[in-house]
């Protein structure tokens, strides 16, 4: 089926089978968004989280055909997003990643978590991030990294545009 979709700000016209997930489309040779990672492929691990029309969603359980006319953003599309840059720096500083498999989705989930409510404490962050699994870090570094940005710690300035 024909699909018109915006991916990271670029309008694309693609041919997809109805059963193609958004995740598989994003990882396909035609689209090439390697930040989208597939772990469980049934909506549990959160590694495939992207933005659909500006809101985070699991791309492994979104059918590409159902998103005709939508705007999809992956981490590749957030390269100059101030909040994402702050979170990346803070994850680095706080050991918020090890193997990196969960990290792109963690950044996307953390971004929406802070944007919807910047004043979150550690418990709120744990709850908000509970849909993203990490098998390396034990989460402490991830929570600390997000808290650092929430607190506006030095080195995590988000810039005037956010």
């Amino acid at each position, binding site marked *: 089926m024909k699909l018109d979709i915006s991916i990271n700000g670029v309008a694309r016209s693609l041919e997809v089978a*109805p059963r193609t997930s958004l995740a598989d489309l994003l990882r396909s040779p035609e689209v090439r968004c390697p930040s989208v990672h597939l772990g469980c492929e049934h909506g549990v691990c959160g590694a495939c989280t992207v933005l*659909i029309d500006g809101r985070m*969603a*699991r791309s492994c*359980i979104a*059918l590409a055909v159902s998103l005709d006319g939508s705007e999809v953003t992956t981490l590749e599309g957030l390269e100059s997003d101030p909040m994402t840059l702050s979170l990346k720096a803070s994850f680095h500083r706080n050991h918020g990643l090890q193997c990196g498999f969960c990290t792109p989705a963690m950044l996307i*989930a953390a971004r929406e978590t802070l944007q919807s409510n910047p004043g979150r404490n550690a418990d709120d962050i744990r709850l908000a991030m509970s849909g993203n699994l990490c098998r390396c870090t034990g989460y402490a570094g991830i929570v600390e990294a997000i808290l650092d940005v929430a607190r506006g710690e030095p080195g995590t300035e988000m810039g005037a545009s956010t």
Partner: protein
Amino acid sequence: MKPAEFDYVRPETVEDAVKALVAGNGQARIIAGGQSLVPMLNLRLMPVSQLVDVARIPALRAVTETETDISFGAGIRHAEFEDGSVPDPAHGLMRRVASRIAYRAIRNRGTIGGSAALADPSADWVPLLIALDARFRIEGPNGMRECSGPAMFHGPYTTALGESDILTSISIRRLSAKARTGFEKIIRKAGEYPMVVACAVRDEALAISRVVLGAANRPQIVLEHLSYWLADPKGGPESALHADLEQAGRTGDAYELALAKAALLRAIGQVTLA
């Protein structure tokens, strides 16, 4: 974890969606948010020859308010309740419950109607909608009909919906200012399917006094004795609670019984709290 092949149509009206379901001869399924259906397709747990996507049908995205009721299109997403983008006839209870359904990434896509139509025994919405005395509007090949919660939900994954029916809206009466509500779920990991859900609503003005229990792999039940007790809470709730659970055959497993009791007592505690 890839689904088998299927066809896909996106009708623009409820009428066309019903026609597509009839033409599908029992092998077509409705998809809205897809947050339960697509995992099942990925795991190949369900044979589907055609998906009928209703997520964008305007009638299913509408919210209609009258002085006494609010009717929610079945395609309203959990996050819209959570964010307060739609009004809450239960003074914040729907918002509170929505905000703890699965994870935000799921809530951004999943819909209240999809949850009700699937009737997962662990669903958060189902016991709440029964307790709020919601009315369900169903459109099918023979026209429109309405039913109550107990008539809608027959058991786990079993509802009043026929294979060519669509749940189009859910109507809820506005609770009075003096109404009190309680909701409690017990869950081992944040965002997972709950092990037990309890919901209690008491509104004298609307003559609602209802306590509902939902739990994994069991039908939701209305606790009649406890509901009666809630209307006039004299003495402790324990004997009413025990009578209901005994009647429903839920006293066999000590652990399940303890979970059910704990959730129910907490939910009714939120109602009776002075």
